[in-house]
Each structure stands twice: as C-alpha cells, then as structure tokens.
C-alpha cells in the first residue's frame, strides 16, 4: 500500500531524510517515531506530495507520487500537525470544498459529512465560520475532511495535538476501525504510549536514518531489552545511534 524506496531529502548539506526504505501493508497501522528534527515531518510531507524528494520514490497503492501525483493523492487522506484552514468558510462549506476537490458526488456528500461531523461532535457548529473554532475543533474538522473521500491510505502527523481526551479516544477507535476495513494508517507521533497501544508496527527515525522497524517485540530484541515499554526502547535506540 505504501512503499518508500531510497527516499532522501537534502537541504543543502543537511540530510533531513537519508535513503529511507519502508513498506506498509493494507490494513496496517504504522507508527513513525523519532526525536525532534529526526525527519518525521519531512518524510510525511514527501509522502503527501507536499515536498519533492531529492532522490528515491514514494509509491501509494502502486502509484508513483512523482509520476502521477494527482492519482496518488486521491488515495490519500492527509492530516497535518497544524490545522491551517480557510478561516472564512464554515465547517460544512470546508467539507463541501473538499468533496468537490475529490470528486465526491453531491448526494453521497451530505450523508458522509453529517456522519463525520456527528462523530467528531462538530455537527452543531457546522455552519459557523472556522475562525470561531478552537484548535481542537479545527483538528477534528481536518480529520473529518481527510476521511471524507474514503482514502485507502491515511497519513497523519501528530494526530492528537490539540485534541481533548474524548477526541483522542474517538481517533484511536477510528484508526482501529479503518485499519480493520483495510485502510493503511501511517502515523507520526511523539506520544509513545499511543504508538504502543495502537500501532501494529513501529519505525524509529533518527537524524534522517530509519534505525529500527518492527513490532514492539522486534524493537525490544533490537535494543537487547527485556520487559520494558516503548519509551525505554526508544531512548535506548536513539541514544545508541547518537553515540555512534
């Protein structure tokens, strides 16, 4: 479903992402963790088609992002870490805008929009301007818009930023439900507990290199650790890498 082949991004002499190779299967929830400045957001931006790689390729559902970006993007629901939206539109109008952009039929739109807005407790304020929304409400609206066209791949950068506990619970459950239906979830996060609870596999990136991938058990083996949690594994692996 998602394939990253030798993916690199260089900013002058700085190698933000270095020869990243990764494959995520349909229905899998993949957690992408790493320290600040490790290359997580750069990777996500390349996967979402927001940034062109220096070398390598991003393949989404067998479609090369560089060759057929529009077709690849149609398969993706992207949720960025900062919910920048058109502030002068209402929540419902923003969803209508997204629906038009993704070619969703008029009759299907209303049903889907109402369902998503109800799920995220936004329906009562759907006709207010987005500029009157709180950060958390904007984040919920972005998630609703990303799911409106039933994407095969959901790419999320820090999904829980700005969400209240109820919102976090809704998103966790939603990701599990989507994955069970075959949707691939690629999630970058600093919340290690969330990654541990939700993700099937986890990748750790540090200084642009993917230093470890696998299930929590695989990572514990890689770190030569016993019954510990992801946080300890993360510190062990990233510190080893920094020392080397």
């Amino acid at each position: 479903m998602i394939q990253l082949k030798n993916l690199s991004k260089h900013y002058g002499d700085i190698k933000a992402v270095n020869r990243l190779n990764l494959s995520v299967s349909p229905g899998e929830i993949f957690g992408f963790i790493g320290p600040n400045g490790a290359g997580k957001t750069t990777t996500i931006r390349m996967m979402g088609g927001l940034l062109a790689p220096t070398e390598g390729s991003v393949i989404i559902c067998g479609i090369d992002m560089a060759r057929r970006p529009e077709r690849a993007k149609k398969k993706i629901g992207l949720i960025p870490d900062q919910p920048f939206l058109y502030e002068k539109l209402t929540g419902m109008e923003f969803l209508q805008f997204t629906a038009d952009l993704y070619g969703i039929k008029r009759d299907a739109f209303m049903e889907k929009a109402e369902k998503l807005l109800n799920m995220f407790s936004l329906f009562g304020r759907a006709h207010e301007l987005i500029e009157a929304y709180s950060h958390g409400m904007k984040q919920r609206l972005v998630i609703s818009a990303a799911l409106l066209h039933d994407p095969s791949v959901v790419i999320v950068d820090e999904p829980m930023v700005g969400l209240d506990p109820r919102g976090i619970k809704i998103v966790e459950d939603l990701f599990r439900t989507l994955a069970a239906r075959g949707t691939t979830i690629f999630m970058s996060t600093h919340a290690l507990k969330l990654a541990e609870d939700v993700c099937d596999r986890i990748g750790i990136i540090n200084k642009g290199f993917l230093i470890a991938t696998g299930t929590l058990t695989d990572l514990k083996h890689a770190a030569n650790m016993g019954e510990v949690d992801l946080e300890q594994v993360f510190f062990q692996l990233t510190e080893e890498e920094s020392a080397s």
Partner: protein
Amino acid sequence: MRQVIFLLKPRLWSFKNRGHAKKGGIRLFVFGVIGLFFWTGIFAVSYRVLVYFQQVEGIGDILAYKLLSMVLVTFFSLLIFSSILTSLSKLYLSRDLSLVHSLPVPREKIFLARWIESTLDSSWMVIVYTIPVFISYAIVYESGLFFYANIALALFPLCVTASALSALVVLTTVIILPARRIRSIFVFLGFAVFIILYVAFRLLRPERLVNPEDCSSVLVYLRSLNTPASPLLPSTWAFDSLKAALSGDVRNALFHAALSCSGAVSLAFVAVWAAKTFYFRGFSKTQAALARPFQAQSRGLNIFFSFLPGPARAFAIKEIKTFWRDQTQWSQIFLVGALIVIYIYNFSVLPLEKSPIQTVYLQNLLSFLNMALTAFVLTAVTARFAFPAVSIEGNPFWIVRSGPISIRAFLWIKLFIYLVPLLILSEILIVATNLLLHVTPLMMYLSVITVFLLTPGVVAMGIGLGAAYPDFTSENPAQSVTSFGGLMFMILSATYIGTITILEAGPVYTVFMAGLRGHGLSYLQWAWVVGSFSVAFLLSILAIVLPMRFGRKRLLVSLI
C-alpha cells in the same frame, strides 16, 4: 527604557539578519533604481515649478509659500492616515502580540515600543519622498546649511505628532469597535475623503481657468492664497519654521521648531499615559472579537456553479465566499468602484466641441487611447485582486498541495475565476466611455475586441507572476502587490499594453484615414493591417501562456 529597547531588539535583529541574506540583491537593486527614479522625478517637478513661480512677478513667493503650506498639510494628512493603519496593526493585530503580552513587561512599555516601531514604519517613506521637495526649495531660494538642518527639526516633530495623535485615536476607538473592523472603516473613510476631494476639485472645473472671462474668479482665488493656515494645525508650526529658515530668520525658525517639538513630546506623553488605561482593555477586546459566530448556509452558489467540474467549482465558491466575508476587501471594492466612476466621469466632461481639432478625428483618437487607458485601469484592478490570488491561500495552501489537483490546474482555475469578472468590468468601461465619446462603429468594435484580447493576458500575468512570487505568510496578502513580483507585473503589463497599442495604432490610423477620405486600402496596406493584428493576437496568446508557465515553474521550485 531598557525594557523598551529589549522589546525593539527582535525588530532590529530581523532587519540586520535580512541584510545578511544572500538572496534579494537584484530585487534591492531594481527597487533602488525605481525608487531613485521617482525621487528624482519629484525633485525635478518641484524644482521646475518653483523656478516657474520665481519668474511670476509679484505673486511668485506667495505661490511658493502656499505650495509649501499645501505640501505640509498633505504630508501631515498622509502621516495621520498611514499612522492609524500601522498603529492598528502594530498595537492590536500583529501575530507576535500574544507572546509580547505574556512577557513580564508593563503594558505602557509594550505600547511605547510598538508605537516607536509604528512611527518609524509609517513615516519613513513619506519623509523620503517629500525631502526632494524641500531640497528644491533650498536650491531655488539659495538657503544655507541651516535650512537643511531645519528640515529635520521641522519634520521629526511632525511625524511624532501625527503618530501620537493616531495612537490616541486608535487607543480610544478600539474600546468601542473591534480592531479588525476599524481598519476597514479607516481605509474606507480614507478613500471616501479622497473621492470627496477629487469630486470637489472636478466640480471647480479647473479647465475654466484658461478662459479669459473667468479671470475674476482667479483674482478671488489669488486673494485666498494669502490667507494663513490655522495656527492649531501642527503642519502650520512646521511651515512657519521652514518659511523663516528659507528667509534666513534663524531665531524665528528655531522658535517654531521648538513649538513643534514641545507639541510632539506633550502628545507622546499623553499617548503613553492613555495607553496605561486603554491599551490592554482594547487588546483584550480584540482577542475576544475573534470568536465571532457566523451563520451561513448558501446553496445559491452551489447551484450557480454546478456546471463546473468539481475542483473548479470548489475553488470558485471558496474564492467568492472568502472574498465577501473578509471585511478588509470591502474598502478595496469601494476603491475600484470610485476609480471607475472617476474614469467615466472624466470622459463625460471632456470639452470636445471646443477643441480646434476636427471632432470625429479627436473622438476616434481618444477612443484609441481609451483602449490603452482601460487596460491600465484593468492592470491596477488586477494588481489588487488577481495578483495576490495565490498568496491569499496562505497557510492552508497545504490543502491544494495535498489535494488531487495539479499546480497547473490550480493556477488555470484561479485565472478563470478572476478573468470573468475582470473581463466584464473592462468591457463595461470601454463601451461606456466610447458611448460618451460618440465614437464610430469601427472604433467601438475595435475597442471591444482589443480589450477582449488584452484582458486575459493582463490577468494571466497577474496570476502567473503572483504565483512566481508568492507570500504565503503575509498578514495582508493584498499588500504583496508592492513586492518585487508586483512591480514586475506592473512593468510587464504596461509593456504588453503599450506594445499592443503601438501595433494597432498605425493600421488603425491608415484604415480610419482611408475611410475619412473615401479611399480604399492598397495591397501593401492590407498586408500591414493583417500582419500587425496577427502579431498582436499572437502576443496576446503568449501573454497568457508564458506567465502562467513561468508562475507554475517558480511556484513548484519554491515549494521544494
């Protein structure tokens, strides 16, 4: 004062760091050359006018001093208007204010630091472009070095006074109205004052002054020249100081400059004192005013645009809704409306029948020039609305980048969204003014077709260059027209319009004269007409395609 300096440091450091940046050398050079060109132009015109006044026996000095007084009143009015807008942004709307107000610094010091910034920002350009006027006075009146020093002594307190008065107005008004709305209101009022002044000036019919039978009114006017300006106006203090310095009366010049300085310091003191009471209350109110609920449910646009493909419909509806809901746009619409009214009104008062040139010839000549003028009006409107169309996407541009739409399609959609209303506007302008001119059917058809060909090119240049030089982080994308890209657009558009006009001028003249004399065209003349119009058509196609391609490439590169 130390805390005020600390608060000003980020601005100073940003300015210093901007100087270190390698990029932008060419931009700086181009801006520098254009700025110098205007500066020299202002100097040349004022010097020429003053030399002319000197030659007018008896009233030369009166006219020169009257002009100086008018320059200072205009200077002061511009400073007030500019200071109100700048202090509103600096004190209430800047993005960094949340951070600044969270710092352990007294509010009046925050105010003082912001007010100093606002004073500098609102004054520097007005000062730079009025200095050549004062220098021309110094040269014509052969003043000594003291006059040059006195320019600074007179202008500095005038800037401080204008800025302090504006701050006081803003501080008190924000308590009543939300800051975001005030900006629109002041911009609106500013343009309203401009229009009233213009219409009043037009109603005076200055063209009548050239008629000898109107001489008595000129004498009345001359008598009014000697009436002194109000002593309560700060610009009068500066005028008195500069006038005394021009005539070498140092003592009087210093007295009036000191008067001006004391007025400025007192007002600044009052502004800081008022800030202690009002500033935070107003700032707090501005934050609360953000959460303005808005009920909107319009299906009309969806139905109206239902014939468009999905992405085009999405952007068309989004563009229209955000445009009408953004109050800062309203004043711009008013400005465009006023521009059109003035433009059409000017044609209605043209005294064609009194011209010594044959009326039919003159009507058609004016109609021909009118095509170019309409295109220049179009350029101004495009610069304000279509050029910032890409920048106006702002931070939510990620939605476009991650959406299933190419940058190419996105730009073409933008082009069509702006092309339709601008084409209608241009055609209304050209047809209305041609009707007022009573032009021949040939000129009417030619004008309508030429404007139809010119408009897509001008709008495409606006969209293309706006995409090539975007500013997604600007707090006011409409101001991007004053950037390097905006300047390039103006220059390119003017060149394009000029080229098309020149290409059409010769053949049209030939056809027109042949019709007037009742002759047919020779084969060579036909070839010339067809060739010129074909090149004009080809250029119009290139004017659409090339800027759009350039914009797409530059935008893609800037996003990598």
